[in-house]
């Protein structure tokens, strides 16, 4: 998740303000919402992905696994445009223009030959990727804990950042031993902070199911999720007065997601991959070591 945001904060000669932040700060609060919504949706989907790869949780036993999990949200045509409102004195009718993942921004025509150009898209990609280290530890009374943590100190133009996540998974199969599949439920929470501009939180809860066939485990789940990204900046766009502060909470539009995946258990080495479908489609893959 840190890497997703890092790539949208390019190097600049000024640490305190980079071109991406400058571009954002010139968008009105309504337009920045539309411009960044696909980024927020992808961010939220990534934060809420890759948290498990099996529903099997033992009653009591030592389980420790350290993983690196990669996720990616598919960026389709719908994620590349949004309806924006031009500033006065331009006609106040919505104009379809580019999001941060889109192409060239649209131009609104105004009176007396005026024209206003909306911000251009900045990232051309088919997938919005992320990666995070993750530790799973258990099993006590059919319960495991999942922890994500990655601090990045300030370096060059990249501000001090941190991501922290924690979750708990509990076996349902221990109450339904005759069900031929493994069942579990999980609850996860994560938070991310990048400098002073971006703060994000995500949470999800859901049901997990899996069935193992020798070294291969098929798994899936249904989860409810939410993610919020908070932006805090000084608006410098049209009509602004100096020091106008914008505090904006952007909510991911993902709510329900269906997950299906496959895990390969090679004793101390674990490989998994899954795809999840909701408002956006996301994929994740994990490489883990441990028992």
């Amino acid at each position, binding site marked *: 998740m840190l*890497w997703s945001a*890092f*790539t*949208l904060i*390019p190097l600049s*000669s*000024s640490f305190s303000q980079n*071109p991406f932040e*400058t*571009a954002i700060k*010139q968008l009105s609060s309504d337009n920045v919402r539309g411009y960044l919504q696909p980024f927020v949706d992808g961010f939220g989907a990534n934060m809420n992905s890759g948290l498990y790869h099996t529903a099997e949780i033992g009653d009591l036993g030592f389980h*420790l696994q*350290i*993983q*690196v999990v*990669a996720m*990616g949200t598919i960026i389709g045509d719908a994620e590349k445009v949004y309806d924006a409102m031009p*500033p*006065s*004195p*331009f006609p106040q009718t919505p104009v379809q223009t*580019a999001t941060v993942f889109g*192409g*060239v*921004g649209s131009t609104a025509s*105004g*009176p*007396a*030959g*005026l*024209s*206003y*150009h*909306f*911000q*251009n*898209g*900045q*990232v*051309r*990609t*088919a*997938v919005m*990727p*992320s*990666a*995070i*280290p993750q530790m799973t530890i258990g099993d006590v009374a059919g319960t495991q804990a999942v922890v994500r943590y*990655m601090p990045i100190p300030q370096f060059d133009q990249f501000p001090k950042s941190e991501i922290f996540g924690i979750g708990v998974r509990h076996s349902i199969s221990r109450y339904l031993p005759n069900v031929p599949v493994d069942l579990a439920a999980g609850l996860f929470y994560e938070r991310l902070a990048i400098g002073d501009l971006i703060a994000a939180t995500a949470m999800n809860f859901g049901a997990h199911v899996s069935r193992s066939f020798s070294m291969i485990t098929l798994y899936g789940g249904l989860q409810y999720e939410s993610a919020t990204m908070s932006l805090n900046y000084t608006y*410098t*766009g*049209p009509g602004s007065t100096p020091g106008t502060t914008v505090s904006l909470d952007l909510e991911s539009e993902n709510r329900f997601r269906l997950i299906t995946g496959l895990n390969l258990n090679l004793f101390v080495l674990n490989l998994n991959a899954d795809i999840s479908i909701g408002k956006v489609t996301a994929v994740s893959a994990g*490489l883990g*070591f*441990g028992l």
Partner: protein
Amino acid sequence: MLKKQCITVAVLTFAFPAVLWMGCEFGVNPLLFDGSPLRSTFTASTPGNLYADSAAVSLRNALSGVNKQVDSITVYNITLLIDNLKNGTQSSATLTGLGGIDGDTLVMLTNVPLSTFAVERSIFDPALRSLPSGGACSAYAAGVSYLNGLLKYPDALPTSVKLKVGGISSQNGLYCDVTLTLYTQVFVKSNQ
């Protein structure tokens, strides 16, 4: 063993993103910036009802704070503000006059009450074409076109342009500030 695993995970965590982002392109289109507002304030201080003034404005000031290579600049709004009325100048007094740049007219006012521009207001506001008082304010495309023609080639910007205002008031004694502001968009050159 655990330490080795942690090191491996740390290396992969930082190596993965580099691999994942292969095939992605950043900065594919030029960023747009709002140029610094170009503002000129004229102080009217006349016991009569005639007023005229002019001032040189550097268009290069629009690039203040933009430290990237500029491709072009366009004007997207021009505003007028008439405030700081004093010495008996009534806000209901009307003004007939014009504002322009070099030899081109940007805005023409006909019997427009000073109160119309008591707060900063775009000269392109459609409501100004026909005011309740019977007056009108018209923005001129020729002036905008002239201005955009100058801004189209930032490397060849003139040292300054002359903003001028002038007009006749309906009352004797005109004491106020008239501020004309140009708002621009700055197009920087693409990284591609």
